[in-house]
């Protein structure tokens, strides 16, 4: 029987040039901050579809019902997911992984999944990756930092990457959780007509368990990193800047003689 693969999708805050913070300066003011798809979730979604293409697996896209979630679910449908599930969530924005994990684990249990793919990390989360938390709650084997997944004779083979170009192929029995770093192929293009068709497809609603928000990492302040502290900046037109850079590099013997 074909496997059922679930992929978790999570919109993340996407602060632009004009940063806006809440009154006590501990978080972004989301009223004035865009959200976008977590780039690693996009990689996980692509890997799920690639596995479905290769093995005939069914792909279920799952997201908490926060701002930006429906867009991500519909994009997954347009890419080839067969089902989309929106899990009830009271808040307007995605909670951290410590808070989200119990709700998502419960949803995954209900979906009777063989393989769960998530993005390896999210840019706005100070409570660590979702992968290991879901594995602990579901009591499944897991691996993060994965770039390359195969399904062979009912087992999952995952290529886990380490620093310096080292990697290992891990064999995991199913059900299992993988934190995807990069899909095996670049993310496919979704045509306007496919997206249009996905806009008409149904998103299933799922109720969720009650859970208290995680308060274990208590924000004290959030601020832009001081990025101008070190670099000496060249200024002017591109032509003027190029001349300055050439002179600075020439002085250091780093420009061709």
């Amino acid at each position, binding site marked *: 029987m074909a496997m059922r693969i679930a992929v978790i999708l999570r919109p993340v805050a996407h602060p632009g040039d004009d940063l806006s913070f809440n009154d006590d300066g501990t978080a972004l003011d989301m009223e004035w901050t865009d959200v976008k798809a977590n780039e690693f979730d996009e990689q996980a979604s692509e890997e799920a579809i690639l596995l479905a293409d290769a093995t005939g697996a069914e792909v279920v896209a799952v997201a908490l019902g926060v701002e930006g979630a429906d867009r991500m679910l519909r994009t997954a449908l347009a890419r080839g997911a067969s089902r989309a599930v929106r899990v009830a969530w009271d808040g307007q924005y995605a909670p951290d992984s410590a808070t989200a994990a119990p709700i998502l684990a419960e949803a995954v249990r209900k979906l009777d999944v063989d393989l769960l793919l998530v993005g390896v990390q999210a840019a706005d989360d100070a409570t660590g990756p979702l992968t290991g*938390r879901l594995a602990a709650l579901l009591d499944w084997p897991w691996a993060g930092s994965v770039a390359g997944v195969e399904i062979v004779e009912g087992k999952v083979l995952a290529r886990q990457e380490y620093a310096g170009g080292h990697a290992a192929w891990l064999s995991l029995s199913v059900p299992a959780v993988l934190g995807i770093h990069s899909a095996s192929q670049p993310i496919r293009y979704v045509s306007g007509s496919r997206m249009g068709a996905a806009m008409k497809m149904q998103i299933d609603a799922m109720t969720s368990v009650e859970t208290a928000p995680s308060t274990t990492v208590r924000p004290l302040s959030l601020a832009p990193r001081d990025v101008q502290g070190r670099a000496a900046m060249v200024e002017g037109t591109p032509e003027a*800047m190029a001349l300055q850079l050439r002179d600075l*590099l020439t002085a250091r013997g780093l420009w061709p003689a």
Partner: protein
Amino acid sequence: MILVHLETRGGEIAAQGFELLAVARQLATLRGLSVVAVVLGPLLPDARASLGAADRLIEADHPALVAFTPEAHARALAAIAANQGAAVILIAHTSQGMDLGPWLSARLGLALAAPCRSVTAGDEGIEIVVGLYGGRLVLRAAVPWAAILSCSPGAGDEAAGRLPGIPPTEQADVTEALDGLRSAVQSLESPDSDAVDLTRAERILCVGRGIGSADEMPKFAALAAALGAELAGSRPVIDAGWLPKARQVGKSGTRVAPKLYLAFGVSGAPEHLEGMSRADLIVAINTDPLAPIFGAAHLGAVSDVLALVSELTRLARRVPN
């Protein structure tokens, strides 16, 4: 007590482990706690000689711990942490640490903060600094004195944590914890020795997603050729297939230390900075004045990268009079 997980490669302790020991020592001294280092898997005899910053060393050796699997290592570490009554656990925010931290957090009921750029004892508990949004924003936060801290490189002073001395050592029996494992290492891969070796390049021109598309790549290849530099890319560029994997600089690619590192359209995510901040001269060109790359660069230009690459190529190709 404070537990410090030391990663190993080939039986040697990875350098970042000594940074963690320095952080642990600082916290422990302030609170009157002890520092216990944990090594899972085999260790070369000489590898213990610089662990003087730890009060004790616990080793666990088992066939399932020879190469890393998240399941075996996390279970062994959890068993040791529970047995020792560890309040604070320090791990490196590497591929291994990213797998261990969240699982231990859920299983042991400890808070997890990641990736910590600094860790200090504060009035409100342990105060941490975390880089969020690709390093563009900095979060200061407090966690209780019952937490797992997953630290990025640079969080501690490696020299301060690398002290001569072999601490009292005990062997932990983790056989029971490793019963019924559902995952195993199938094979190991080493870096491709035939591919370009960026670690030997004196000049590197690195492109990021900010260059726009693969169609622009020839412009940067032309400047790289004119400057005698190797062409490299940040992770999104490699993931998109614009350049081969061997040309990736960063945490999951190659760590480089050239004389010149020219970064075009690279935002400077912490994972990227980890791979190139040891370069002698870093020149960053980006349209975003807030890009974290400017925090690591020596020279910077806020500019349209395509306009500047054309100008630089024109100048580099100009025949001297």
